[in-house]
């Protein structure tokens, strides 16, 4: 099984001694994120997030299926994650390693279990037809902090996505194409964001948005998912050296700040995207003399 190459002893010691002097290798403050860049695709529901050199792409798709027998009034929402060798030679195709399982569990807990997406609104005819919303998370480049990046991309993609409109006449369901009728936004109840805090020296040093090297040197991490209203959706501190109970509460407070920051980024980018798409309604789009897109 290939593994991410371990950093050398020199690098490990240097990173630690630098952190003790309040210096990060890339000159950031401890709680500072790298540049967060979010871009949407041509289609609805494609989001591409870059945090520093880490890059994650999410695509949402919808299809009409029969709901689960035990959940007749709910639509289906699944998240699939993929860490392929495109991100790093340490990942293998078709084989789930620890990182991938933890990442998919994390997204599951953050987005699905916290009820971020209202699955009841995906029901078309109870017990017969519903939408299956599928989110594919692809990590394209791995330089640490994939949890935060994936969660951000997933939330942004869900907010960007539009599902086709449907009409129900008794038992008959008509699904309208994107051209026929304005597609409909998904109903999001809240937007949670994952914030990973890496700690060193038993909680003396706390870092946000650790790079790969910092992740390899850290003692442990606390991953907190929180929305801008201060609702904590999930906390995971899987083992690692013990830290004060109080520091975990401090982590949550810091995470709230960061979640608000990411929330603003997503909102601003969505607005920007909407403006770009808005050509003045369907009629304006159908006019013969509209501007052709430059190929």
């Amino acid at each position, binding site marked *: 099984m*290939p593994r*991410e*190459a*371990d*950093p*050398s*002893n*020199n*690098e*490990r*010691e*240097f990173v630690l*001694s*630098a952190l003790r*002097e309040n*210096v990060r*290798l*890339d*000159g950031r403050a401890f709680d500072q994120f790298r540049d967060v860049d979010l871009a949407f695709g041509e289609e609805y529901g494609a989001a591409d997030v870059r945090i520093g050199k880490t890059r994650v792409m999410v695509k949402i798709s919808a299809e009409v299926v029969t709901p689960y027998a035990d959940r007749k009034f709910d639509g289906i929402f699944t998240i699939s994650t993929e860490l392929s060798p495109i991100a790093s*030679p*340490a990942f293998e195709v078709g084989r789930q390693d620890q990182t991938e399982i933890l990442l998919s569990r994390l997204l599951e807990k953050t987005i699905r279990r916290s009820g971020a997406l209202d699955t009841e609104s995906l029901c078309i005819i109870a017990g017969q037809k519903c939408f299956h919303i599928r989110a594919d998370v692809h990590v394209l480049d791995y330089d640490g902090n994939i949890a935060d990046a994936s969660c951000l991309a997933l939330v942004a993609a869900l907010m960007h996505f539009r599902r086709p409109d449907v009409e129900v006449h008794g038992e008959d369901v008509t699904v309208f194409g994107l051209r026929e009728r304005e597609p409909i936004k998904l109903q999001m109840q809240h937007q949670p964001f994952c914030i990973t805090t890496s700690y060193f020296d038993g909680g003396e040093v706390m870092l946000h948005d650790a790079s790969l090297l910092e992740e390899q040197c850290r003692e442990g991490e606390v991953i907190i998912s929180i929305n801008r209203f201060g609702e904590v959706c999930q906390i995971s501190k899987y083992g690692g050296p013990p830290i004060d109970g109080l520091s975990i509460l401090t982590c949550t407070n810091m995470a709230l700040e960061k979640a608000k920051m990411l929330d603003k980024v997503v909102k601003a980018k969505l607005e920007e995207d909407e403006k770009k798409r808005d050509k003045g309604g369907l009629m304006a789009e159908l006019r013969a003399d509209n501007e052709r897109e430059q190929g």
Partner: protein
Amino acid sequence: MADTAILLPGEEVLSESLPKSKKGTLTLGPGLRHIPPSTILSTTSGTLHVDHKKAALWIEHAHGRYLPAVGDLVIAQIHHSSAEAYACSLTPNTPFALLGQLAFEGANKKTRPQLKAGDLVYARIVKASKWEDTEIECYNSSTGKAEGMGPLSGGMAFDVSPAFARRLMMGTDKNGKQKGEVVVLEEVGEKVRFEVAVGRNGKVWVDSGSVKETVVIGRLLKEADESGLDVEAQRKAIKKALKEVGK
């Protein structure tokens, strides 16, 4: 480096860009292929470089991972040790290079450096072939002298691209100008004292004794590498960065 041209794979090297000296045979460097009778094709994309005096031409490119070549100085990381050799990694996820337990200056069975997994050494490649393990050593086996090689302790190893590492090692021409057009180490060296080792495998080890200065040097190197700064821009960045650490 006035006469450089960009070549794409499969492109022919025009006869006017061949070395002008008549004597001696033409030497083809990496990235070029001779197709008899008189065609020279490039096998990769990059810039064509010509040395008229030595009648040599080669292609410089900034992609791909490092491939070991005999005589290259590299920074290797010990992975594990066996009875007669240390297995070292030059680049991640590639076969290990072997470093003999006694391939150090003044080493014999009783006194030899005890290296742990994860330690760094500055070494020279003595054997590189497709079919066998790469071998490296930390001394010049013909003279028995270390010549600056050996274990690296402290400091920090920064990752740069192999092409940038090569540029760092090109040295100066007769006017004292940097052939590789990287002035970071020299310019910073006027203000800050530090030790440095450049490995062709894309690693630069820096130790200035102070964390802040070392970080600044690393950052300048990475910036010059990744954003392709020219000499002027490098000088500007250096001035700004040195001001920050109070030099």
